[in-house]
């Protein structure tokens, strides 16, 4: 059974963002990219399942240009067997559904039985692509999983549900599982791993090879458009409460009650 891991490169979480002139996206020159933090949990889980003899191969899947190869190599250095990068000019301007179509087509073409992905990419923060992939592949799905076990085709998983509850769920492959913090502790690449990764293959595919027509992806197929991107409103200047701690605390409680009216 092949495990597919979706990997996206995102701006490092400490990036101070700048917005383009059209106010539709951020400027990416000078931005340092890293593997989306949640994708690291997905990759780690895949590597552990393979080590436990529950998978034959771990293949990573990325939509993007050659600039993503450094992050893909990082995944290979940690232990993924090979990588697929979907790169096509027709993908420019795709919304989540367009990207999900490209990924689902590539995952299907490779015969992947279990797809592991991060719960969200920390750029768009949408958390929509894993479930879209599941629908397009006709697979089961579990979102935001922090515990996962597999026995043959059967799996169990745990996730946070609403109202402070946790759910234990059971299903069967094929499945798409989106991974949350707490699932595992991702490994770092080792020097031998980095050397080994140099000879591992990154296959670059276009959408025609995946059997997708250009009108299913890209800006023309996008159902969702972004505009008017701007910084969040500035918060009004706050107040530092003076005096000794007891005085400051008494004043704080008064303000919370009488001015802010939140207690």
């Amino acid at each position, binding site marked *: 059974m092949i495990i597919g891991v979706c990997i996206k490169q995102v701006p490092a979480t400490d990036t101070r963002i700048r917005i383009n002139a059209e106010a539709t996206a951020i400027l990416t020159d000078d931005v340092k990219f890293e593997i989306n933090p949640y994708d690291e949990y997905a990759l780690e889980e895949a590597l552990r399942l393979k080590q436990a003899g529950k998978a034959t191969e771990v293949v990573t899947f990325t939509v993007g240009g050659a600039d993503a190869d450094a992050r893909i190599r990082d995944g290979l250095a940690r232990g993924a067997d090979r990588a697929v990068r979907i790169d096509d000019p027709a993908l420019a301007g795709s919304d989540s559904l367009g990207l999900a179509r490209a990924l689902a087509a590539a995952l299907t073409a490779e015969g992947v039985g279990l797809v592991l992905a991060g719960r969200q990419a920390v750029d768009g923060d949408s958390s929509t692509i894993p479930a879209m992939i599941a629908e397009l592949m006709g697979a089961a799905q579990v979102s*935001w999983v922090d515990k996962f076990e597999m026995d043959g085709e059967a799996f169990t998983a745990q996730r946070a549900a609403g109202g402070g509850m946790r759910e234990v769920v059971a299903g069967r492959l094929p499945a798409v599982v989106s991974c949350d913090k707490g699932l595992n502790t991702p490994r770092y690449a080792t020097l031998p791993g980095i050397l080994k990764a140099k000879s591992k293959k990154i296959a670059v595919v276009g959408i025609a090879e995946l059997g997708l027509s250009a009108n299913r992806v890209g800006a023309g197929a996008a159902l969702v458009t972004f505009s008017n991107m701007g910084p969040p409103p500035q918060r009004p200047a706050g107040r530092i409460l003076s005096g000794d701690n007891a005085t400051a605390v008494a004043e704080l409680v008064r303000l919370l009650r009488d001015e802010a009216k939140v207690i």
Partner: protein
Amino acid sequence: MSNGILVFCEFEAGRPRKTAFELLQRAVALGAGPVSALVVGDGDTSALGPNGAGKVYQVSAPALASYSTGAYTKAFAAALAASGASTLLASASSVARDVLPRLAARLGAGLAVECTELRNVGGKVVGRRPVYAGKALVDVTINSPVGIFTLRPNSYPVVAAAGGSATVVPVDAQVSDSDVDVRVTDTVAASSTTADLTEAERIVSGGRSLKGKEQFDAVVRPLAAALGATVGASRAAVDAGYAGHGEQVGQTGKVVNPSLYIALGISGAIQHLAGMRTSRVIVAVNKDAEAPIFQYATYGIVGDLFEVAPLLQAELSRS
């Protein structure tokens, strides 16, 4: 253009959650056509009409007794078709996050998630939402005949119900046990009985300065309890084991939107600010007067949290 808004109303213990009223009231205020409610399962729907629903599309079936993606997706699709609505609105909850992308892919519908603002632009609903963990906001426009939006809890105030009543329309979604693809086999209570971080009205968070799990438990949790608040933590505190990973607030944890956020010993790294900057009132307690958190705080106390937090707790229980 608009054939109205269908609002997914979530229930807990047989009654609508507060988010249901927030959504219904906002849907009415948008003035983009008739507002109706989508209810999955049994439950007392009598409060939905007074909060703005003209009709309640209720999908009940034994296979919907507990949550499953497969059965719920079918139920949503059937209710949406029955209502003829052009907009589906839901809270940004764990159920919505699981089922709506699947529904969107099935229907070829545009999906705008995690909105903090919904407007009516020429009869069409447009969302505004944070991206890059709130470092930017962006308008989201949907170009498909049906648009799906999720709204973060506490984005709009809930006011007293205006009155009115709803007609209940039962919907047969033809769901059966074979639609239950992933089955819930057990439900367990997480650590506390307080509200989810993402829905909490009040949050007390602790950072690395707590210096240990024991102190975190002795200082942050009792203050939260005194306020009826949910406990949060910075990434540093979670990684050091002071708090559970489900309690992490920030870019790689929960994004929260409470009325009151109290940060104890949190310096205010950009990743943490990303998770809580939309809180209505932020209180910061930190020894370091230069800590970035003070630039975002409504009220700040420069002082030792081990002295300030117990004083605050005592003051709250006194008055």
